[in-house]
């Protein structure tokens, strides 16, 4: 059916609410890529099976990722008249037990992560309070009280994990497409742009260009055919929030794009999805079909006379395609080589027509900003970076997952409050932000308030929100080498400074990591870094030296230790370390001997073993498997 007016939309909302909060038990399983990787599909299947077997009156639903990936698989149980409970780290067996218990009115508090008594509906600015009659479960902490969620403010992630991404009615029930209806019926194009401009929203893909201004440039560019593009080529390693939004809440992106298209005057759009995200592409494809069926995409959207279509273009594995001009080339069916700007895509973009490109998160924010107003949005954040940012908090951190917080949050809060610190009580060494274009911020700067400006001042950048925590066991020379290896592989090869310069820099780093470098090489490395930075055409080359420059700036002593002392302080670089077995700690269990691929380890059962250093290839497996910390590195 086609939605023609608000009444139709209200009707679907009622249906969606019924589906979200049915009059019987509903069990939801988070089935994002991350959930599935931990076995969520098997959990889902076992719940369905058990419910059928026992003839329980309950529905089983699927949701996207609730962000707390560390604790997945997550299972969330809704029962009328009770608190909603989220169970974590489930497996098929536990899930069966849970279902059996629920059928008898019992909950499993020991598996509960948290509970909810209400939900925030961002678009409507309301709190959906459950009518809770039963007081059981009060000792389970509330969702808003557990450290991981306490400081979060979910706007771009407002629906992820709280609804079924395959059900458009559930999206509508949470206020979805009402903003679009209001825009098409009562807002002028310029008014929409003005609102986005005043909100202070900046591009969430990394560069942070003011979104409203970008829209205005494209709107003002001459030409009848204009394109809108969603950049979902999330290539920064360590960042996966775009994937999560596309999988868990694809309609928020579609709605944002239609609003943008209306404001700019475009009738055709593309979503460029990364090749490595098959599930996200499927999710968007399904959402587009649904939106077309309901008249929310296509001709005469919501009976307004406005037409807009969206197509999917799937990447084929090239990091550089996240750069907007390379992305355009890729959609045009060419190799993804960037071209000089100007002309900017706003003037000459896809097939030389004015084109506006925004990141997934930027689009997902649009409906919320229009619904709640620029004032509401701009009250959050710092003077120049407004609103919230989604980070993927990963690496050596206790709580990993997706975190949406107001701009200006301190790194320390991210790591110690939300992330609850470093595993095994290790010391924080650095936080890497901005992917291969960013840098490593040392632990001394833990009080840095995270926004676009502060990160740039520290030598890093916001990027698409990856935040990789590194502890004392991370070698910074090795990290710099890792990123240069990445950019070397991903350089499209068009400009010499990037293509050749990165390789030469990598050779120097390789020498350093092998203890073969001279002190003068550091200077050469810095000179080369400057050349690559200044002389490359696009942002890939222009930012590629950042990981080297920031590690040199903050961790120079580590470079020097490799060069002068021929030591790797973090015990990582294979050429500068040696494995040995501590005779006092070794129990002679023989596990390392069994795993050693080189038969370099020898010793009698129950007697201390030893490593033949001439045979050792330093694979580290003995260190990993030893249960007695007897394998030592020096």
């Amino acid at each position, binding site marked *: 059916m086609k939605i023609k007016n608000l009444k139709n939309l209200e009707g679907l909302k009622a249906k969606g609410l019924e589906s979200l909060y049915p009059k019987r038990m509903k069990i939801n399983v988070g089935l994002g890529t991350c959930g599935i990787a931990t076995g969520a599909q098997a959990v889902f299947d076992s719940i369905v099976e058990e419910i059928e077997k026992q003839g329980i009156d309950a529905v089983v639903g699927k949701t996207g990722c609730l962000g707390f990936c560390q604790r997945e698989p997550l299972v969330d149980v809704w029962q009328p008249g009770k608190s909603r409970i989220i169970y974590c780290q489930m497996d098929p067996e536990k899930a069966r037990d849970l279902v059996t218990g629920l059928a008898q009115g019992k909950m499993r508090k020991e598996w509960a992560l948290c509970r909810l008594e209400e939900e925030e509906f961002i678009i409507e600015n309301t709190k959906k309070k459950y009518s809770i009659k039963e007081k059981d479960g009060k000792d389970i902490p509330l969702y808003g009280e557990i450290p991981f969620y306490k400081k979060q403010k979910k706007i771009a992630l407002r629906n992820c994990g709280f609804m079924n991404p395959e059900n458009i009615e559930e999206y509508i029930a949470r206020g979805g497409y009402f903003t679009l209806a209001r825009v098409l019926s009562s807002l002028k194009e310029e008014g929409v742009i003005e609102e986005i401009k005043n909100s202070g929203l900046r591009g969430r893909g990394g560069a942070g260009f003011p979104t409203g201004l970008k829209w205005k440039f494209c709107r003002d560019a001459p030409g009848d055919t204009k394109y809108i593009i969603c950049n979902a080529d999330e290539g920064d390693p360590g960042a996966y929030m775009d994937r999560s939004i596309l999988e868990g809440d694809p309609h928020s992106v579609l709605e944002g794009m239609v609003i943008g298209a209306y404001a700019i005057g475009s009738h055709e759009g593309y979503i460029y999805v990364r090749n*490595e995200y098959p599930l996200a592409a499927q999710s968007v494809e399904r959402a587009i079909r649904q939106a077309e069926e309901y008249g929310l995409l296509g001709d005469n959207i919501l009976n307004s006379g406005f037409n807009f279509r969206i197509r999917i273009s799937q990447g084929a594995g090239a990091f550089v395609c996240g750069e907007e001009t390379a992305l355009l080339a890729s959609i045009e*069916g060419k190799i993804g080589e960037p071209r000089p700007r100007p002309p900017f895509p706003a003037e000459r973009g896809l097939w030389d027509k004015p084109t506006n490109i925004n990141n997934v998160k930027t689009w997902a924010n649009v409906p919320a900003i229009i619904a709640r107003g620029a004032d509401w949005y701009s009250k959050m954040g710092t003077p120049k970076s407004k609103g919230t940012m989604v980070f993927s908090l990963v690496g050596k951190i206790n709580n990993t997952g997706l975190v949406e917080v107001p701009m200006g949050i301190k790194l320390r809060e991210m790591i110690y409050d939300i992330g609850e610190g470093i595993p095994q009580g290790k010391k924080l060494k650095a936080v890497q932000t901005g992917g291969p274009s960013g840098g490593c911020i040392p632990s001394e700067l833990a009080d840095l308030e995270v926004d676009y400006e502060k990160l740039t001042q520290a030598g890093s950048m916001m990027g698409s929100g990856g935040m990789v925590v590194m502890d004392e066991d991370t070698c910074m020379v090795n990290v710099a080498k890792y990123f240069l290896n990445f950019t070397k592989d991903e350089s499209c090869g068009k400009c010499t400074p990037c293509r050749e310069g990165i390789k030469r820099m990598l050779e120097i780093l390789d020498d350093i990591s092998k203890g073969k470098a001279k002190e003068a090489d550091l200077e050469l490395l810095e000179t080369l870094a400057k050349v690559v930075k200044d002389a490359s055409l696009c942002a890939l080359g222009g930012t590629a030296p950042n990981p080297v420059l920031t590690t040199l700036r903050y961790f120079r002593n580590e470079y020097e230790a490799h060069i002068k002392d021929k030591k790797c302080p973090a015990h990582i670089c294979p050429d500068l370390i040696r494995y040995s077995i501590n005779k006092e700690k070794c129990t002679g269990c023989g596990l390392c001997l069994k795993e050693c691929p080189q038969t370099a380890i020898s010793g009698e059962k129950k007697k201390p073993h030893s490593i033949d250093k001439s045979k050792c290839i330093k694979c580290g497996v003995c260190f990993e498997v030893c249960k007695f910390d007897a394998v030592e590195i020096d």
Partner: protein
Amino acid sequence: MVNKMKRKVDLEKVINKYKGEKGGVISVLQEVNREYGYLPEDALKLVARKLDVPLIQVYSIATFYTAFSLKPRGRHLINVCLGTACFVKGGNRILEKLERELDVKTGETTKDLKFSLETVHCIGCCSLAPVIRIDEDAYGRLKQDKVPEILKKHK
């Protein structure tokens, strides 16, 4: 030979689907790559002829994007994630272990054509690092000694 003929028919169907579509070359190659597991030389020539695109352009696309392979891949494709989170958590050690277990280098296929070993820059499962993906299945929080049993599942 029969097989090859049958495939060629399918191939023409795939190409026709994208004929006339702006920028369709990449989409065609993606489907061909999915179908065969790689891009056979004949297929590249056919795509070029049918879509009226110079062969050099088709070839440059086929070699630019990492999703495409010009060599036949094994029955199972192992992708070792080397995103930042996986790297920090020892993803390269998992890769080295796989190289030793399968007796191939990264980018190669085992002699029995069972496994191809490749790396990928982040599959977005950073919270489960280190991660590998075999075909569609992702395995997270890996340690070297877990590798052999995972391989066994895909024999």
